[in-house]
């Protein structure tokens, strides 16, 4: 019954009907402004609390003053205490998260292309197998992986403890299923006809994919990259277990080792400060990349 209605909407595109009323427009923009305000408060209010908690003196960690007085940067200085090797830890995080993201994108784009555009037996099974690897609790994977990477099995004669690859490989595996599925969903949204047109023009399949589909799917690829990067940046358990050398640890692991003034003291201040330090550059970086990458892809795309 209502089928008719919908078909109407989609198919009767050519007809010109009267423009919308103005009242709706104004109401609409008020709703959007309120919505934006809501998003900002929602996202930033707890983060504000994180920042002020970091700006208190370490001895006043539990204060509930809305603006710390006196404002103190002691916690931020403490984060970069030489014994924490925090700058090095940030670099390690960047290396691990960066390589993870690159590799996930490459593997994910390959896999998703195969699933979205190629026709082969067992596709559903493969897709389910891939997603199934995201269904097992990571905490249970840790001990076998530790044994594997410390040379505990004869068929894997490497000792990877305190190496980047011991952190990167598992992290890739945790991020890949989402990347493959997500990119697959984006590629499928785009009409095959576009590629076919390019191929008729004499481009190879990959040329068509790279120059037609990839630019059009850019928002999807970029979001997948952000999500992968953040997930890798925030990975903790594997990084903690596979690495015990201070110079190889990631920022999250370094944060977990911060101590307060005593063994019972959770160092809220320094941990909040470190939280701010690891989050803000990430956001800035994402914003810069967003302009560059999306801009670049759009420029290089087909006309």
């Amino acid at each position, binding site marked *: 019954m209502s089928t008719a209605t919908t078909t109407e909407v989609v198919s009767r595109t050519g007809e010109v009907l009267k423009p919308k009323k103005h009242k709706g427009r104004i109401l609409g923009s008020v709703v959007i402004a309120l919505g934006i305000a809501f998003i900002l408060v929602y996202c930033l209010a707890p983060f504000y609390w994180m920042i002020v908690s970091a700006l208190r*003196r370490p*001895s*006043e960690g*539990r204060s509930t003053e809305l603006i710390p007085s006196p404002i103190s940067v002691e916690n931020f200085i403490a984060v970069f205490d030489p*014994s924490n090797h925090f700058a090095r830890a940030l670099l390690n995080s960047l290396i691990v998260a960066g390589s993870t993201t690159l590799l996930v994108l490459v593997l994910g784009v390959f896999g998703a292309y195969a699933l979205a555009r190629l026709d082969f037996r067992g596709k559903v099974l493969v897709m389910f197998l891939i997603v199934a690897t995201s269904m097992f609790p990571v905490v249970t994977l*840790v*001990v*076998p992986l*530790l*044994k594997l990477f*410390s*040379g*505990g*099995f*004869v068929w894997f*004669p*490497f*000792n*990877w*403890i*305190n*190496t980047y*690859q011991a952190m990167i490989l598992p992290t890739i595996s945790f991020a890949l299923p989402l990347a493959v599925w997500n990119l697959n969903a984006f590629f499928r949204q785009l009409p095959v006809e576009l590629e076919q047109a390019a191929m008729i023009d004499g481009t190879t399949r990959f040329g068509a994919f790279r120059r037609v589909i990839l630019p059009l799917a850019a928002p999807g690829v970029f979001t997948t990259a952000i999500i992968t990067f953040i997930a890798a940046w925030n990975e903790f358990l594997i990084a*903690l*277990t596979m690495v*015990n*050398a*201070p110079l190889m640890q990631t920022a999250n*692991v370094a944060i*977990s*080792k*911060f*101590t*307060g*003034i*005593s*063994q*019972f*003291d*959770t*160092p809220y201040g320094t941990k909040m400060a470190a939280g701010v330090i690891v989050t803000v550059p990430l956001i800035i970086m994402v914003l810069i990349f967003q302009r560059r990458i999306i801009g670049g892809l759009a420029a290089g795309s087909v006309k």
Partner: protein
Amino acid sequence: MFNSTSRPLASRRTVLAAGGVTTAAAALAACSGGSSDGGGGGGDAPAADFEERGPITLAKGKDTTGKLAEFLETWNSEHPDEEVTLIELPESSDEQRRQMINNAQAKSDAYTVLGLDVVWTAEFAANQWVVELPQDKFPLDDLIPATVTTATYFDKLYGVPFITNAELLFSRTDLLEQAGLDGPPETFEEMYAAIETLQKEDPDLLGFGSQYSKYEGLTVQAAGLVASAGGELFDAEGKPHADSAEALTGIQTVRDGFDKGFIPQEALTYKEEESRAAYQDGRLAFLQNWPYVWALGQAEDGSSSVNGKMVASLVPGFDGPGSSTLGGLNLGVSAFAKNKGTAVDFISFMVDAVQQKEWGLATAQAPANVGVYEDADMLEAFPFLPQLKEAIDNGASRPAVVQYGEVTQAIQEAVYACFSGETDAEPAMKDLQTKLTELTAQ
């Protein structure tokens, strides 16, 4: 490409069992004695090689002061061929424990000397994750006997006490005066009476607080309360007595405190720091906590409203002062590590009076070495030291059972249910007794 020999901490050519995790029973080379077939048993713990020397690691939660790095520097300059590398574990002790167990399960030799919480001794020993230590190689006579007990399992030594700890009662001189007392209360009765007097004048005053949140600290409270009342949760044979009259008295007294408002409801969220904050803000009249509170409470930077008014004494008891549960850290040696000879020497170095005094002064943690408690510098730095020594000597141990994880969870469930008013003390402790009996029957 991934050359294992190029990694400094890599376990070169480590002989590890092939095959599945589960079938790798008794695969460690050192473990040839005793545990072969289930029937016989009775053998001694496997003998470890305490002659092997070389570089080792120390796995421990991070040091708050930088003192440990100094110790390692001293040691390493004197023993260039037997360097000790520090592996910092996360700050949370659950996380430390998880890392150690993971490494033991993977039979990794990454950790040599382990910083073990006093309550892990039985479990780590029984699982043979740490080796029995030769008693004659350590200055055990210099260490407080109660602390050595925490490192002992089935009359064998599995660790050497490095630091210890006992809780104290912190009162406020101004409030004591106001309540008409000339010294800190010794019993719950005296303390509750004082709170009643004080609350008549200031109804907002919260009274007494200790760590009643549902976590390990609650077991610390329970074991201390039961010991203060003259009972024990487990006897020397390992039999539970959670429903004894003494245990009931101990638990019921705190429950009464909650019921009558002498202990605030928010104390159910108290861990060490939450309770310290409440005391330092001047909201709590009495606080039971570890000695670290002293220095922070006396701070003069405006963060503490009780500075200059603090007085420390033994925790409240029933007929007189009560006992506190012992905390602390023992140093053990991983069963899977190499160079156990170096490990033994290094542990002796760490518990030597020189290091122990320096450690105490730098970190304000209670050393395990007896001599340090008589030291003039220490007494000057920590005026409550005599009380602390007394508290440690009278300290109660938490149950030394293999299934400590299950036991402490059962204790926390029962005591929390009672303190939060969900069940009464008697059924809660009866139930606990049944559970503990079941758990230790195996």
